[in-house]
């Protein structure tokens, strides 16, 4: 065979080898660390960053807004309005992580002295972190946070430009962030918020929301409690009420307590809204796992031994049948990275080496192959026997 001529053809290998060596010889000997694409990735997602509480304000008689900033006052990572931050609090010597929707706006994080805020309601006795934030957390406290997480945000290529927000209780917070960003002119969407509360005193960030109302932001408060002086909407967020305020072809964004999700699935169903126009924020940690179909109630009072493998190290800790593996680990002071704590994000992906478990059916965000090989998202998995799990070394 012949390409250009025998001599040239057979000399190909040495020709390209010489060319390569020459290219190296002529190259600069400088140490080029230039990775601007990696730098942008790290600016958006730096992982856990150090934060300090710089301000605490009352957001309603039962809730507080907490502002965090970098210790040096620097810019915070960009994020989308509606996303959450996963915070590490040190409570009684143990690191406890919680995700909170960010109630401040993205533009506020990117200015000089950038900040990020969460708004947390005091619990009715079942949320010790919520109570810690309301009662104990003080200005100056150092925490760590991983921010810009979650899928609950307006995506202009997918969503209608008109957002119909259905909020309940403290579920208003991601919409406050959106409303601020829209009012600031940095998010191009219209927002109608139907906000359900029990009483007018329960309305969180009432004044903030009122101040954001304008051409593009509308807020409709709906009270379910019996309040004689209330002139606004009453009852629950029913299909009828939603219809009254919703424009055509809106995208529905829903955030609130778990009971509200169940109720609204039914109400939205009545409206014939296409699936692509409905977005629920993640479910949250199941309040009562024994109430789910398939949970073996007879095991609910059991406590098992959980063997935790990290590298070549093993620990044995107790684990209650009604508490997720993550809770058992946190109680025992063993670090596991979590974010959404709703079984969706996979941060706490864990290998089960031995034992039986129950996965919350509302919160099974696992990959198919992961299910086949016994992986769980530890925040949504509950022990049903003694177990052995392998988790990353933190």
């Amino acid at each position, binding site marked *: 065979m012949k390409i250009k001529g025998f001599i040239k053809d057979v000399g190909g290998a040495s020709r390209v080898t010489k060319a390569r060596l020459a290219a190296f010889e002529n190259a600069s000997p400088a140490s080029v660390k230039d990775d601007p694409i990696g730098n942008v990735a790290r600016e*958006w997602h730096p992982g856990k960053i150090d934060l300090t509480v710089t301000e605490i304000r009352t957001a309603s008689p039962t809730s507080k807004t907490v502002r965090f900033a970098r210790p040096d006052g620097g810019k915070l990572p960009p994020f989308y309005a509606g996303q959450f931050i996963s915070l590490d609090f040190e409570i009684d010597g143990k690191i406890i992580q919680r995700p909170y929707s960010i109630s401040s706006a993205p533009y506020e994080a990117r200015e000089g002295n950038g900040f990020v805020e969460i708004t947390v309601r005091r619990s009715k006795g079942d949320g010790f972190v919520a109570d810690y934030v309301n009662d104990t957390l003080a200005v100056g406290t150092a925490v760590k946070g991983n921010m810009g997480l979650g899928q609950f945000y307006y995506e202009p290529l997918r969503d209608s430009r008109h957002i119909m927000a259905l909020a309940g209780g403290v579920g208003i917070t991601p919409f406050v962030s959106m409303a601020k960003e829209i009012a600031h002119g940095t998010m191009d969407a219209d927002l109608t918020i139907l906000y359900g509360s029990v009483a007018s005193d329960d309305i969180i960030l009432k004044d903030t929301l009122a101040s954001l109302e304008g051409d593009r932001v509308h807020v409709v408060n709906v009270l379910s409690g019996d309040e004689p002086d209330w002139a606004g909407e009453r009852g629950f967020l029913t299909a009828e009420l939603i219809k009254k305020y919703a424009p055509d072809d809106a995208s529905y964004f829903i955030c609130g307590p778990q009971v509200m999700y169940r109720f609204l699935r039914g109400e939205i169903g009545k409206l014939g809204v296409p699936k692509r126009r409905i977005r629920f924020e993640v479910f949250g940690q199941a309040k009562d796992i024994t109430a789910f179909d398939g949970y073996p109630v007879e095991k609910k009072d059991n406590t098992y031994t959980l063997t935790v493998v990290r*590298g070549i190290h093993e620990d044995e800790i107790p684990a209650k049948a009604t508490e997720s593996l993550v809770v058992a680990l946190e109680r025992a002071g063993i670090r596991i990275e979590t974010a959404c704590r709703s079984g969706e994000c996979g941060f706490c992906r864990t290998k089960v080496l031995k034992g039986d478990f129950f996965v919350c059916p509302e919160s099974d965000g696992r990959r198919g192959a992961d299910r086949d090989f016994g992986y769980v998202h530890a925040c949504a998995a509950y022990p049903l026997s003694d177990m052995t799990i392998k988790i990353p070394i933190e």
Partner: protein
Amino acid sequence: MKFYKDHYDVIVIGGALAGLSSALMLADKGKDVLVLERHNLPGGIATSFVRGGIEIEAALHEMMSIGPEGNRLKVGKFLEDMGIHIDWLKVPEAYHASLPGLEVTLHPGFETFAREIDAEVPGSYDKVMKVLSLCHTVFDSVNELSIHPMSKVQMLLKHEAFVKTAGYSTQEVLDTFGLPQKVLDLLAPYWIYVGSGFKDLPFTIFSVLMADYIGYGSYIPRKFSHEMSLKMAERAEELGVQIEYRQQVEKILAKDGKVYGVRTARGDEIYADYVISAAYPNKVYTSMIEPISEVPEKALKMVNGRRLSLTAFSVIMILDKTAEELGIKDYSIFIGDTMDTDELYQDLAGLGPYRYLTCICHNLGNEEATPPGTCSFSITTLPRADGWKTVSADDYDRVKHEVAKQMIGDMSRYLGVDLLDHILEIVIETPMTVAHYTGMWNGCIYGYAHTMEDHIVARLQTAEAEKFFEGLEFAGAHQISGDGMGPAVTNGRKAAKNVLDDMKKKEAAK
């Protein structure tokens, strides 16, 4: 608390396909191996994710070098030899090409492929077969020579076609066949995966790609590339490999030109006789070797003398209609307004609009890829890092949406359906996404470009001279076999083989 052994035979940095292949091969030979992976799952970009309850492939379009059951090609065979059984699904066609004046679906198998081109350009069958047959001869030689090196004279006798085409670009060799432009256009679409225009792309690489993809077709795992990555990781653990996730290696410890361990971001110092790095040589030689003064100038000149290959930009959508309802007929569609690869290559240095796109509809290769009534459709371009290097964190979201919108618009016009009306879920993957999840240098998924100045034949010739540290090997797209998930496996095996050879040599010297 002690999480690591005092010493390992080998530490592998990176638990993606290359690193896992190294680990598998070493463990199979009884070596004590530790894999440190920065993410919380294996695979790098060979992975999947779940959105709105639907599992979505992150990156794999098609796996090459798998081959049918009973007649596996090198990657398929290696996995089986290691005891890894993937539920492979054969991709039905080679590709659908939508190019100026051409709308053709081509299927794998040389005769089929040539016949289908002949139907479009009558009288071209023999010439196309000649090209493919030359590609196959070169492909066979590359496979054999990568296992059994031989003298130049022997090579000329036994591997004439390989030797005689080695010094030429794809353009130079294809020119000798006198192919009509339309035929050339139909032979070119897979070009996108190799990162150089035909004037600069070694014919050797084009041959390997064509022979493998067109000759044997391609495959995907039923449960996405995560099935492959996870099965490799699980098997490695069965063979005794310790895999630790969420462990970012920051430093490779070296003394007197020899590596002896690593230090992680957590602060663990771990010791081993060998380190295999999936991190790019650019990163290793500029910021990972400790002390950095150990890095010789030659190593820096080498990385600076090479051109980074492509990164990736993908818009992945789950649509609320089936492929049939949307008029999507092919698993993979290559669409461009020209097939001048050198011109297109220049285009990839910018931020769009990109003129050459690759679309994948997974449901047409795997009916169960998404829930009934929906389908997945991705639009990908493989840009160079150059354009994306100019995008700041504050501009990033705007730029990524502009580029994605343009690509969705292009494909909507092609399909005659406004895809924007059907999006259930959308994920936009950018070079920054790659950098975020894998740490790959400048988001480059494809290592160094195959060019006439960085030719695979030359890479093989000079490999020994490019070992700057005793005990340090590299496994990843940045190695000899280059880019893609199939070559990643081959690169990983090569690194393990180098380690095993060196161990034997040292054992013999004792």
